[in-house]
C-alpha cells in the first residue's frame, strides 16, 4: 500500500524537483553571483536602492487587498444567504470574468480610463469636466481589485455557506442581536476564508507587472515591472532580477507568516472579540 502510493507520487515528485526546486536554486544562485559567476552580495545590497518600488508595491497591493476584502465580504455574505439556485448563478457570474483573457480585461480598462476613453467621452458628452484616470496609482489599484476580487469572494463564500444556520440561531437564542451575531460568530468563523482570500489577492497583486504597465504608465513602477526589466527589458541583469525576486519572496513569506499567526491565535486561544 505504502510503496504503491510512493510509486504513484513519483511523477509529481520529479515534476516538482525539475520545475520548482531547481528553478528556486537557480534564482538563489543568480542572486548571489555576478556576471562572471563569482560569489557576491552586491546584487542583494543594491536591491536597497529600489526600496521605494518595494514600498509602493506593498502599499498598492495591500490597498487592493483591503478594498477586495471590503467589497468582496458583503457580496460573499449575500450570496451565501441566497437560495441554492441563485447561489450557483451568482458564483458563476463571479467567476465569469476569470474565463476572459487577463490581458484583454486589463486592456479593456485602458480604453475605459484613457483621457479620451469611454468614461471621459461620456463625461464630456454630459458637459462635465474630464478626469485624468489612466497612469495613476488609483488605476493600478482598480485593475488589481477588478482582476483579483474573485479570489477573495470564492473562499469567503465557501466558508460562509459552511456555517451551520443553527449556530447563528444559537447565538440569537443566547441574546445576540444581528450585529453581535456577525461580530462574535460569523466574522470569527469566516477567518480561514478571509486568510486564504487575502493571500490569494495580496500575493499576485504585489508581484503583478502587467496591470501597472498597462494602467500605471511609467510613474507607477512595481516590483514586477522591475524584475521584468532585468530579464526581458532594457536593463538586462538577471543577477539583480534574481536578487529582487528573492527579496520579494522573503517579504511575502513574512506577510503570510504574520497572517497565519493570526489564524492560529483565533483557533487555539479561542479569543473573544469585543
Amino acid at each position: 500500500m505504502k510503496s504503491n502510493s510512493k510509486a504513484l507520487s513519483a511523477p509529481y515528485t520529479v515534476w516538482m524537483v525539475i520545475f520548482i526546486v531547481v528553478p528556486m536554486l537557480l534564482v538563489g544562485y543568480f542572486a548571489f553571483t555576478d556576471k562572471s559567476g563569482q560569489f557576491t552580495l552586491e546584487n542583494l545590497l543594491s536591491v536597497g536602492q529600489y526600496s521605494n518600488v518595494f514600498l509602493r508595491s506593498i502599499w498598492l497591493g495591500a490597498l487592493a487587498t483591503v478594498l477586495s476584502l471590503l467589497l468582496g465580504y458583503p457580496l460573499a455574505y449575500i450570496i451565501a444567504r441566497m437560495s441554492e439556485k441563485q447561489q450557483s448563478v451568482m458564483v458563476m457570474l463571479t467567476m465569469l470574468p476569470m474565463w476572459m483573457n487577463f490581458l484583454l480585461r486589463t486592456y479593456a480598462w485602458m480604453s475605459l480610463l484613457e483621457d479620451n476613453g469611454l468614461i471621459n467621452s461620456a463625461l464630456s458628452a454630459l458637459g462635465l469636466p474630464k478626469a485624468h484616470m489612466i497612469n495613476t496609482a488609483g488605476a493600478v489599484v482598480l485593475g488589481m481589485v477588478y482582476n483579483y476580487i474573485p479570489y477573495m469572494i470564492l473562499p469567503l463564500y465557501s466558508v460562509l455557506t459552511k456555517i451551520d444556520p443553527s449556530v447563528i440561531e444559537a447565538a440569537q437564542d443566547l441574546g445576540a442581536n444581528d450585529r453581535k451575531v456577525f461580530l462574535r460568530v460569523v466574522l470569527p468563523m469566516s477567518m480561514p476564508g478571509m486568510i486564504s482570500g487575502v493571500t490569494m489577492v495580496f500575493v499576485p497583486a504585489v508581484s503583478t507587472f502587467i496591470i501597472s504597465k498597462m494602467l500605471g504608465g511609467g510613474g507607477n513602477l512595481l516590483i514586477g515591472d522591475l524584475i521584468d526589466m532585468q530579464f526581458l527589458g532594457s536593463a538586462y541583469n538577471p543577477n539583480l532580477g534574481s536578487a529582487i525576486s528573492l527579496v520579494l519572496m522573503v517579504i511575502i513569506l513574512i506577510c503570510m507568516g504574520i497572517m497565519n499567526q493570526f489564524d492560529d491565535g483565533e483557533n487555539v486561544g479561542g479569543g473573544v472579540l469585543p
Partner: protein
Amino acid sequence: MGDPIISLKDIAVSFDGEQVLKSFNLEIQDGEFVTLLGPSGCGKTTVLRTIGGFVTPDGGEVFFNGKRITSLPPHKREVNTIFQKYALFPHLNVYDNIAFGMRLKGKSEKEVKKTVHEMLAMVNLTGFSHRGVVQLSGGQQQRVAIARALANDPKVLLLDEPLGALDLKLRKDMQVELKKIQQQTGITFLFVTHDQEEALSMSDTVVVMDKGEIQQIGTPTDIYNEPQNAFVADFIGESNILDGMMLEDYWVKFAGRKFRCLDSGFGRNVPVDVVIRPEDIDVTEPDSTLITGEVTGVTFKGVHYEIIVDVNGFKWMIQSTDCREVGDRIGLSLGPDDIHVMAKSEYSGTFGDYSTFSDEMEEDINASEEAEQEEEHEI
C-alpha cells in the same frame, strides 16, 4: 394551577403554502416538564421554534408570563434552546461557549467565571474549560449545550430532540440527568421528541401531536392507559385496536363477543374503537367462553415473547412470558380493566391490526423516520 408561563393562542404556521400548524393552542405551566411527542412532520419542532422566536406565525399570538411576545426577536426572549445538533460555536472553547450568553448580557468576568464553573460541575464536565468543542464526543457536546443554555438562567428551556444523535445507553443516562437538572433548577422544560419511551419516562405532561394538531394532553400514565383515539393508542406503545360497539354503559361488544368494561357515557349501540394492550392479555387454553385464535408468529424479546395470534383474520399482538409454538390454538383472557374504549376518530381502522407486522419493517420505518428527521432539520 397558576397562570401559564407560555401560552399559544390560535397559532397558524405554513411553509411554502403547506399548513404546518392550524389554530394551535397550548398552555404550559411554570416548572413543568412538558414533552411534545409525535411523528416527524407533525409540527412539534415548529411549535418549539415559534416559542423560541425563530418562526413568526402567520396568525395567532404567543404569550410569555401574560405578555405578548409574538413578534419579539429571539435575542430578546427569556427562553433558551438546546438544538438538535447542539450548535456549539466551533471557534470558541468550552468556557467561552458557556460564557457567550452571559457576556452578551454584560456580566462581569468574575460572575461569568463563577457561573461557568457551576454549570460545568452540574453537567459533570469540570476540567473541560479550555478544550475545543470540536474534539468533544457527542455526549460531551450535548452537556456543553445544556450548560450554555442554563448559564443564562432561562425561565423556559426548549429542547429540540436533544438526545436523538446519542447511542441508546448514553441516551438513557442523559434522560435521567436532564430530569434531575430540571428538578434541581425548577426551570420549565419543553422537550420535543418522537421517542415515546423518552416522553413517558421524563415528562410531567405529554402532548401527543399529529398533523399539526394536539391529539391528547395528559400525564404519561393517562396517555398510556387512557388514549383518546386510535392514533394515540398506536403511537404510544403497542396496541390491538378493534372495531367495537358500545352496547350500553359498562358493556362493549367486539370480536363477536360481549365484554364487561369500565367505560361509560358513550350511549347505547354506538360504534367505538376498543384498545387492548398486548401485555394485558392473558394466554390460556382455548375455551368456548374466550376469544380463541391460532399462533402465527413468536418472537423472543428478552423480557417476554411477542406472540401474533390470528383471530378470524384479525391479528392480535400479545406480550407474554409464556412461550407458545406457531400453530398452537390459544385462548385470550381479558378482564374488564384490560379493555379501553375510545370514540371513533379519523384514525379509526388505520392502526391496530398486526397482519402486516414484522420487526424488520418497523426498523425500516424507524430508519426512514430518522432520515426524514435529518432532512427536516436541514431545512
